[in-house]
Each structure stands twice: as structure tokens, then as C-alpha cells.
């Protein structure tokens, strides 16, 4: 474990700042974007060198590129997701604007979280491109593209094909895929309802603010009751405005859930990759089997299945034995190759399953831990909201009691 985390230990990472910028894009159009300051600091002060602080600016699209690269190069790993590109599942008071300072701030936290997750991952943290992302400002994009990772990316069509044609899917992966689907749907449902709950709660609190005004107006015509009403009105104002902070805090909880909503997609990517490999394996095996059959047919001269070759043989008579020998030889060579290939694919598949499963186990642990923590902090938030409510109403009650 200590060895796995060495990277994070050596270097502290933070996304410390966000800045709005204007520039020209590829087609020379004016565009506004947000750049994020990524800072890295060597944590080991025992080193002979002084503390090294590196900082560089990255755009969201560069984070995206990094993640795509990781996704392709480490198909067996549940790659940490990026924060959402556009604000989703927000309640209506919250701006969905990409340039909104609150949104940018939450994204900054999300991006930092992403880097920390990658850096603490036992495999991903050793990646060279990731290291360069943190340390090399210029030419990083070119370096990434030079790795040719895009060529390794699987086409969507092929993946779709695999989904429907795999004959013997691994049960564990099927289940995992099913789980990811369900997780995604339940979390998105949860987020949607939570946004509505937040909306309504906001309404309840804000309408109380009207009491503040009317109590104060009413107090003007009352003699003995006046003071009590006036100060109770003040507490109602406090109550109404307290909801802003409460819901802002709650947004953090929503972000934690969102991360797992996107993790569900990452889980699915691993499953998809597995399906693809399984499909490859199955086609290779099928290919080999058919070649073996052909070879056997040629050797024994019997045609078990109806084929074009069978027809030509019947129509034009038998081939010369030399020709047949040659063809058998070719086939046998191909069979040998195929067997080799199948073997390696099998091996590769087993390796993939082993690695993927290890990472999935790691992910599950992380997920249970994280979500429990998120639930605790959610409960703590609710508790503090209740305490605030009790406090305000107790104060108001005291004012009322003096009337």
C-alpha cells in the first residue's frame, strides 16, 4: 500500500485557482474559457533540493484529453471521472451558467479531486503522461498525441457489435454492468429529487422572510407587543437568509454523489472493454474451428456441410492431390497461427479479468468508504440545519414571550 501511494506522498497536488480567459480557438473564433492553475509541490523536504513548486495552467479540455488517454491506455481500470462539463441536477436558484463563479469554484474542486484520485491510484499514478500533465506546460498535447493512443481506441460500432454478439459473457461482468446501469439510474433519480427538495426547502424558508417584514410593520401600531414583534421579525429575517448557506453546503453533497454517477459510466467502460475482448476471443476461436474443419474435410475428402467448395468439387471433379496437399499445408499453418493467437488472447483476457477485477475491488472499497463519508457529512449538515432552526425559533419564542 505504501509503495502504491508513493507518488502522492512525494508530490502534493492542488488546483488552486481558476481564471476566465479569452482566446482564439482552432478555427480562429473568439472564445471564452476558464483556465485552472495546477500546482504541485514536492512534499519530501528531506531531499537535498529545496521545496519545488510547480504551477501551470490547464483548461478543462486538457483534463478531458488526459482522461481519454488514461481510459484507452488502462482499459482494465475504473478511471476516475471528471466533474460535469455543464451543471446538471441543479435546483433553479442555482445558476447553470458555465461561467458562474459558484459553478467554476465547484468545478475547480472537482478537478482537483480528479487529479488526487489519479495520483493516489496504484497504477495510474505512475503514468508518464500524467506526470507531464502536472509538470510540462508546453507541448503536452503533442506528447499525448504522439503516443498514438487514439489508434488503440475501440470504435463504438465494434463495441456495440460486441455487446450483442458475445456468446459466453462473464457472469461477473454482466452483473457489474447491470449494477452500473442501476447505480446510474438511482443516483440520477436521487439527484433530481434532491434538487426539487432543495427548491421547496428554499421556498419554505424564504416565505418566512415575509413574516419579518409584516411583524415589523405590525409592531408600529402595537404598544406592549411592539418590541417583541419587532425583534421576532428580525429573527424571521435571519431564518429566511440562513437557507442560502445551508443549500450551498448541500451542493457539496450533490457533487459527491455526482462523482459516483460518473463513476458508474467508468465502470461500464471496463465492462465494455471486457465484452470486446471476449468477443475477439470468441471470433478467433470460431475462425480457428472453421479452419480446422476445412482442413479435416480436405484431408478426409468428406464434406460435412454444404459449401461452395463442395459444389465445385462435385462439378469439376477432384483437385489434383498436389494442390490439395498444398492447401492443407497452408491451412495447417494458419491453424497453428490461430492457435497461438487464441492462446495469447486467452492469456490476455485472463490477465485483463484479473487486473480489472482487482481494480474493481479497489473501487468498491473506495466507493463504500466515500459514500459513507458523504452520508455522514450529509447527516451532519442536516443536524446543523436543525440546530440553526431550533436556535432561531427559540430566539423568536423568547421575543414572543415578552409580548
Amino acid at each position: 500500500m505504501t509503495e502504491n501511494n508513493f507518488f502522492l506522498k512525494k508530490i502534493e497536488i492542488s488546483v488552486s485557482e481558476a481564471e476566465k480567459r479569452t482566446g482564439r480557438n482552432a478555427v480562429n473564433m473568439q472564445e471564452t474559457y476558464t483556465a485552472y492553475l495546477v500546482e504541485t509541490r514536492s512534499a519530501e523536504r528531506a531531499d537535498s533540493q529545496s521545496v519545488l513548486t510547480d504551477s501551470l495552467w490547464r483548461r478543462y479540455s486538457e483534463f478531458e484529453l488526459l482522461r481519454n488517454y488514461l481510459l484507452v491506455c488502462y482499459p482494465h481500470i475504473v478511471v476516475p471521472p471528471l466533474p460535469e462539463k455543464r451543471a446538471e441536477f441543479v435546483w433553479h436558484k442555482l445558476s447553470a451558467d458555465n461561467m458562474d463563479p459558484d459553478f467554476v469554484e465547484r468545478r475547480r474542486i472537482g478537478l482537483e479531486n480528479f487529479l488526487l484520485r489519479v495520483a493516489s491510484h496504484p497504477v495510474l499514478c505512475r503514468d508518464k503522461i500524467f506526470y507531464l500533465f502536472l509538470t510540462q506546460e508546453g507541448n503536452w498535447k503533442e506528447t499525448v498525441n504522439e503516443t498514438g493512443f487514439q489508434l488503440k481506441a475501440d470504435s463504438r460500432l465494434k463495441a456495440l457489435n460486441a455487446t450483442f454478439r458475445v456468446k459466453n459473457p462473464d457472469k461477473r461482468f454482466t452483473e457489474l454492468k447491470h449494477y452500473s446501469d442501476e447505480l446510474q439510474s438511482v443516483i440520477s433519480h436521487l439527484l433530481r429529487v434532491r434538487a426539487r427538495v432543495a427548491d421547496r426547502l428554499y421556498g419554505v424558508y424564504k416565505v418566512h422572510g415575509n413574516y419579518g417584514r409584516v411583524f415589523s410593520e405590525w409592531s408600529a401600531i402595537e404598544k406592549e407587543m411592539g418590541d417583541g414583534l419587532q425583534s421576532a421579525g428580525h429573527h424571521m429575517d435571519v431564518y429566511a437568509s440562513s437557507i442560502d448557506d445551508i443549500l450551498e453546503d448541500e451542493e457539496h453533497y450533490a457533487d459527491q454523489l455526482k462523482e459516483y454517477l460518473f463513476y458508474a459510466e467508468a465502470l461500464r467502460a471496463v465492462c465494455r472493454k471486457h465484452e470486446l475482448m471476449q468477443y475477439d476471443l470468441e471470433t478467433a476461436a470460431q475462425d480457428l474451428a472453421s479452419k480446422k474443419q476445412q482442413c479435416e474435410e480436405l484431408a478426409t475428402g468428406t464434406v460435412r456441410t454444404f459449401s461452395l467448395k463442395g459444389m465445385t468439387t462435385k462439378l469439376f471433379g477432384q483437385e489434383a492431390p498436389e494442390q490439395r496437399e498444398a492447401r492443407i499445408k497452408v491451412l495447417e499453418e494458419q491453424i497453428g497461427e490461430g492457435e497461438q493467437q487464441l492462446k495469447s488472447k486467452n492469456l490476455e483476457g485472463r490477465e485483463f479479468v484479473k487486473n480489472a477485477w482487482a481494480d474493481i475491488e479497489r473501487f468498491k472499497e473506495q466507493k463504500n468508504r466515500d459514500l459513507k463519508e458523504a452520508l455522514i457529512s450529509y447527516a451532519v449538515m442536516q443536524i446543523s440545519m436543525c440546530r440553526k432552526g431550533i436556535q432561531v425559533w427559540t430566539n423568536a419564542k423568547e421575543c414572543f414571550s415578552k409580548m
Partner: protein
Amino acid sequence: MPLGLRAAPPSAGLPKASSDSCSTGQRAGRAFPAARRPGEGLQPLAPPPSCSHLSRPLTLPHSPSPSRAARVPRGWSREGWAGGGAGGEQRPGTPSPDLLVARSFGDKDLILPNGGTPAGASSPASSSSLLNRLQLDDDIDGETRDLFVTVDDPKKHVCTMETYITYRITTKSTRAEFDLPEYSVRRRYQDFDWLRSKLEESQPTHLIPPLPEKFVVKGVVDRFSEEFVETRRKALDKFLKRITDHPVLSFNEHFNVFLTAKDLNAYRKQGMALLTRVGESVKHVTGGYKLRSRPLEFAAIGEYLDTFALKLGTIDRIAQRIIKEEIDYLVELREYGPVYSTWSALEGELAEPLEGVSACIGNCSAALEELTDDMTEDFLPVLREYILYSDSMKSVLKKRDQVQAEYEAKLEAVALRKEDRPKVPADVEKCQDRVECFNADLKADMERWQNNKRQDFRQLLMGLADKNIQYYEKCLMAWESIIPLLQEKQEGK
């Protein structure tokens, strides 16, 4: 409204002192029903005399009655005063107060909550604690109650012609006006309506508490729904309790009949014949007549009432809106909780924490529902009552203006002929008495109302705060209880 939350002020110095000066007029008025009381409670009466028959009640020095009332032992003050203080005008055959006391103790102490303690002798503490529990309304004079009226047990009656609800009205009293210690009658809304108009008619100088609205304003509300009937029952109960607490109104003849008559309709029919006569005395010349000098304080009351009603209207709207928002919030919460349950079904280790959160949200929803129910049942009706109250008040103010207008008109007429007759005629003097009497009654009632209002709103708003505190406490408990569930699991790993 929580019973017994508020301690009764046994020697409430504040309200008593304030009402002292004005109560003379009221007390004078109050003496009549007792003094003239015919033995047969059900017999229709001539309209009770209004204050105007008294000569200048305000100029009277402190009559012995109030001071005596103060000395009368607890539990019997009103009756003792009403029966004995009215100058020995008791009907022959009515037992003297002392006799009455003795008799009541003999057979009623278990029935009558307040009569159970012999006048201040044995345990005033227990009687006052009993009182505290029973006390729903204000006891401004610090007097002990001797009349208890409750409205309960609504029943639906379906006839061929109409369907209606009756309420049971139970009266317990030690007052001499009541032949029996306890009565139980059934009345419907229109009977209350009748009572109120009778009170308005016979006590034009007093502020008559409002009845709940005949029909609920917005939309078609099911008049026979349980909630509607219960809300109305509470309002009617409040209405009767307000009358019961009033030193004059509670002695009103019609009120007595309303509480005791087996067949109210018969009485009502008989009363119809007298209506013309009654109406005569109430009718006044008015219409566009401008008062020469409307006393400042009444003008101020009028202004106050306008603003007060306006503000209460706003509070009513806010409260309704809050309830609506809370109900919407509740709807969302009810969907929100179960999502955690759905999620928990997918998980292994997380199942329990998620289920916990789901249950917790469920508890919070239940607490919220309770809160909105309480607001609808307890908070809104009181606001409504006071909005209606301000209307009643305005109508009394208007009547007062009319009486004053009448007086001024007469005075003017006299002034024109003054040279001929130097003496102010008796009817003008009478008229002046009436104005003064009206003013005194109204001021006393206003003060009483102000006190009631202050108490009621203090209680109402404290109740509002309490309900919210309770709601948050329940939620707090729910959330606090799941924290160990979440933490324990984590440490266990």
C-alpha cells in the same frame, strides 16, 4: 391550543387595574339580568334594558359592588356579587348566596370543577391549579370562573330538506340564573348565528365576538368533512367561551336561553313578535352625518383596527403560503426517502446506511406533516378569528358614532330653541347618558379585547415557535440517531 400552558394570574395586577375605571358601566349593566331575572329561565323576556336607563353611570363613584366583588371569596365572586350586590332585588325564593354556596357544595362539588373548593377555605392552591388546567381564555379581572361552556360532539343530521351539523353544548354553572348545575343542548350553526344577532341587538354597546365564517371563502369546501367540522367546532367553542368570559354578555338573557332551552326554536318564534320593538330602539338616524367631534381615542381605535386587520390579513396569507410550500416540500421528501431504499437494494455494505437515511427522511416527513397539520388547525383559525373580530369592532364603533350623532343632532335642535327653554330636556340628557355609557362600555371592551389579543397572540406565536422547534428537534433526533450507524460500520471495517 395547549391547555394549561399559561398560568392564570391569580392576582393579576396589571389587567385588573387597567379595567377598573371602565368596569363601572359594565357592572351596572350587568346587574340587570340578575335583578330582573324571572324564575322561569325559558320564558321570553322583554328586551333587556340597555345602559341608557341608568342615569350617568360614569359619574357614579365607585359603587360598592366592584370592591365587594374583590372581597367575595374565590369561586363565587361573580355570582355573589350578581345575586347579593344588586341591592337586595332578589326574586323571592332565590336562595341567598350563602345558601346557594352551601347547597352547591352539598351536591355539586364533583361536577363543578371550580365550585369544588369551599370558598377559599380549604385549598385555594388546588382549586387554582384546577383552574389553570381549565383555563382557555383570559380571566382579566382575576376572577374565578363560575360558568363553563364547551362545544363538542358534532353530529350530522340528514333530513329530507337539508343536511346539517349540530354541536353539543354543555354548560356547567353555579350562577343563580341557572336552575340546574348542568345543561346539555344541541345547536346548529344558524342557532349560533341567531344568538349573535340577538346579542348585537340587545347589547349594542358591547363588542360581540365573531362567529366563524358561514362558508369558507375559497372554492367548494366540503362542509361535512371532518376537518371542516372540527375547525368550526373549535371556533364555535371559542365564540361561546369569549361570551362566557364577558362580564356583561355572559349574563345576557338570550345567551342563557341559548345554553339551556330544550327547544330553542319555540323561543325564537316567540322572540320574533318582539322584534319590531327591539329594532326600534336600535335603529338610529344616520347616513352621511358627520360627527362634530368624534373623540380622538375612537378615531385612533378605528385607524388601529384598519391597520391591524390589514396586517393580520397579510400574516394569514403568509401562513397559508408557508403551509403550501411545506406541503410541496413534503411531497418531494416522500419521493426522496424511498430513493435511498431503492439504492440500498443494490448495495451490500452500504445497504444499511442508505436504508438508515431513508428511514430518517421518513421520520422528518412525518414531523413535517404534523407541523403543517398543527398550523392549519391551530394557527390559521386564530388569525381568522381576529380578522373577523376587527370587523365586529368596527361595527360597534360605527354604532357608537351613530349614537353620538343622534345626541349631537338633538343638542343642536335644543340650542336653537334655547332661549325659550333654558333647561335641557330630559330626552337629550338621556341621549347624552347613552353616549357616555356607550363610550364607557366600548372602552372597557376595547381594553378587554386588547388584553385578550395580546395574550392570544403571545400564545399563538409562541405556539408557532414551539411547533417549529419541536419539528426541528424531531428531525435532529432522527439525523443524530443514524450517525452512529454510519460511523460504527466504518470503524468495523
